[in-house]
């Protein structure tokens, strides 16, 4: 008889792979991507393609020539990083800035720690914040969503508009109505504008069990409660909860950025604390800080807290607390 294969149990696997997980994230990003193509036209296409191609290329080059490890781009994680980076950029950002952002995101944010799973901070956000601090003017001039379909002008000389959050900070301009906020008809980064598209993507991720509800719900819940209290205390000074929930990068951050596996806690209980932390810091920065937007910073700060949360907040062990319960007759 020929030799049999010997290996320890289990002999079955659910056939899930890193690649399939990343593919699911990409699928979940499609609705928001379509909305940004609709509103920002050619600009969205140019920015996203540049970001994705340069992220993949940098990962390949670093893996091949610096780390000399096994080719890792097939796992699609750099495509996700690239697309998420693009989602966080204005649609008329100069290409060389995008390429620098991609290099920082992949080179410093991810590969310098050893690649996928080893990075302490969300690579796309590292890239974005680097760009925001280095090029504050370009990073905060958001093109106005197109109302007529003049594709070619959309990237080159797009009209810029302030975001609703910037309007709140400076008390100027007229806030878009709630419907526009939901659909995404407002100034903002490429992928953050349409709350509905992002929520559809989020539901897809939860249904496919790529992410659990803990992080998005705790972030959005915290922001909603905190801003509602502030609004109730002084409606003149503080915007209402729905404005906060539907504007800026909150939806994108809560659903796609904060849920990044490597940089978020590993059990549901710790994830709730992590989400509450992000929601809290976001509102603090938005209402009391110098920047109009705080989600990126809030997520990066809580990324730093993640190892502590993992260490101190453990999942509930079996038999930890014996429930005194009568046997059902």
């Amino acid at each position: 008889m020929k030799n049999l294969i010997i290996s320890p149990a289990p002999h079955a696997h659910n056939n899930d792979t890193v690649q399939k997980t990343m593919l699911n994230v990409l699928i979940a990003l499609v609705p928001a991507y379509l909305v940004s193509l609709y509103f920002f036209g050619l600009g969205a296409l140019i920015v996203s393609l540049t970001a994705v191609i340069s992220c993949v290329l940098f990962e390949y080059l670093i893996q091949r020539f610096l780390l000399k490890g096994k080719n890792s781009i097939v796992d699609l994680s750099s495509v996700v990083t690239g697309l998420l980076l693009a989602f966080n950029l204005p649609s008329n950002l100069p290409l060389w800035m995008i390429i620098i952002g991609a290099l920082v995101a992949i080179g410093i944010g991810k590969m310098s720690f050893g690649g996928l799973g080893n990075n302490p901070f969300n690579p796309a956000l590292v890239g974005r914040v680097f760009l925001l601090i280095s090029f504050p003017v370009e990073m905060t001039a958001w093109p106005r969503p197109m109302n007529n379909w003049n594709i070619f002008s959309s990237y080159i000389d797009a009209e810029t508009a302030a975001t609703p959050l910037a309007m709140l900070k400076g008390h100027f301009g007229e806030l878009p109505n709630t419907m526009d906020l939901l659909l995404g008809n407002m100034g903002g980064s490429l992928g953050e504008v349409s709350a509905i598209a992002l929520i559809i993507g989020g539901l897809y991720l939860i249904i496919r069990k790529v992410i659990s509800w803990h992080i998005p719900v705790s972030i959005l819940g915290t922001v909603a409660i905190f801003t509602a209290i502030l609004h109730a205390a002084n409606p003149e000074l503080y915007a209402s909860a729905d404005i906060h929930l539907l504007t800026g990068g909150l939806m994108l951050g809560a659903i796609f950025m904060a849920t990044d596996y490597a940089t978020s806690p590993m059990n549901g209980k710790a994830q709730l604390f992590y989400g509450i932390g992000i929601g809290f810091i976001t509102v603090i920065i938005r209402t009391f800080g110098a920047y109009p937007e705080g989600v990126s910073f809030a997520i990066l700060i809580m990324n730093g807290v993640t190892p502590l949360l993992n260490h101190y907040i453990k999942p509930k062990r079996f038999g930890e607390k014996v429930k005194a319960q009568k046997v059902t007759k």
Partner: protein
Amino acid sequence: MKTFRIGGIHPTDHKLSANIPIETVALPKQAIVPLSQHIGAPAQPIVEKGDHVKVGQVIAAANGFVSVNVHAPISGVVTKIDTALDAWGLPMPSIFIDAEEDGDEWLETIDRTPDLNRIYKLTGKEIIKKIQDAGIVGLGGACFPTHVKLSPPPGSKVEVLIINAVECEPYLTCDHQLMLERGEEIFIGISLLMRALEIEHAIVGIENNKKDAIELFQKIANRHFGIEICPLKLRYPQGGEKQLIDATIGRQVPSGALPIAVGAVVQNVATVYAVYEAVQKNKPLIDRVMTVTGESVTRRGNYLVRFGTPLADVIAQAGGIPENTGKIIAGGPMMGRAMSNVNMPAHKRTSGILIMTEAESVRREPVNCMRCGKCVEACPMGLEPFLLVRQAEMRLWDDMEQNAIMDCIECGCCLYSCPSNRPLLDYVRMGKATVGGIIRTRATQK
């Protein structure tokens, strides 16, 4: 519908051999009977070379309390008492019996008629004694002597008997088929065990993928006192003792404790049938139903196998080993062990043979852990497999002990659900062995 509260997975159940009637495997020319088919001290041989034995005769006696008798599965002559090798190359002291004539001459005391015996005449103590003498052990896989479980330590109180009819391992169907064909017998067995434990309440936990068995058992339960059927939501590892107790009565056995700590005793449904046969028919444990299955197996099904029959003979009756076989597993795909050969005899521990094709046998290369936490989500004991693995790699034994590595039941949920295909359970098992050794050494030094 009820289920356990922490972790768990939903593997495809692959019950390919469901509803195939039990078929008896032909008796072997030579039976190899291991002396240790149970947890505890191996039995002591009481026959010598040249002795003639009949089916059901005691050939090795229990050696102490946590030990059981071993009986002759076929009639014939004892040719030697020697070491046989199991499927992993480890020595098994065994008694070799060569069949004489057809090898099927039984002891006269054994009732071989198929008639039901509903007369309860033994006291609890006598039932327990009979169970030990008949060599009955837990047939769910652990092979812990049944009479020990029926003798709770002084000061503890049994409230409920839980019958494990979950069969949550994918592919295996032997318990299911036994329930369909021997329902009445199993209920008499449950009543006997309730008598032995001096309780009036038993719960049979059956997973929802066995609707016909649930229906049949509910019908029979109406005629029996104190036996309740509890349909359970399909979820692995529901057949784990602690998970089943949690699922049926909502109590969690504390870390390191036995089910008796929450007032429960758990017995497998096949064990219950063996108890019926031992007490009511005087038949010791010399055979069991096992599943022979796999996508490529031509005559897959449920086979009644006399112990001592080489597994190769069992597979031959099921159509032989297919050409493209990669792995042959003793047990199911989640907790079974891959065998290096099939010459090992069937015994109390072998609940099934799963033949996997070469394509099914491949383990993918592991890639980086991306800290997705799927293993934490899946762990039914609420452990953190990713962390235990890191600590095992770094040999941080104390930290592993603090993180409750000894609670691990080795169900394989973590490895099953890892997208990076990390060898999680392999490392945890290694850590568990080392930490267990450290704990035992510490205990002896005190």
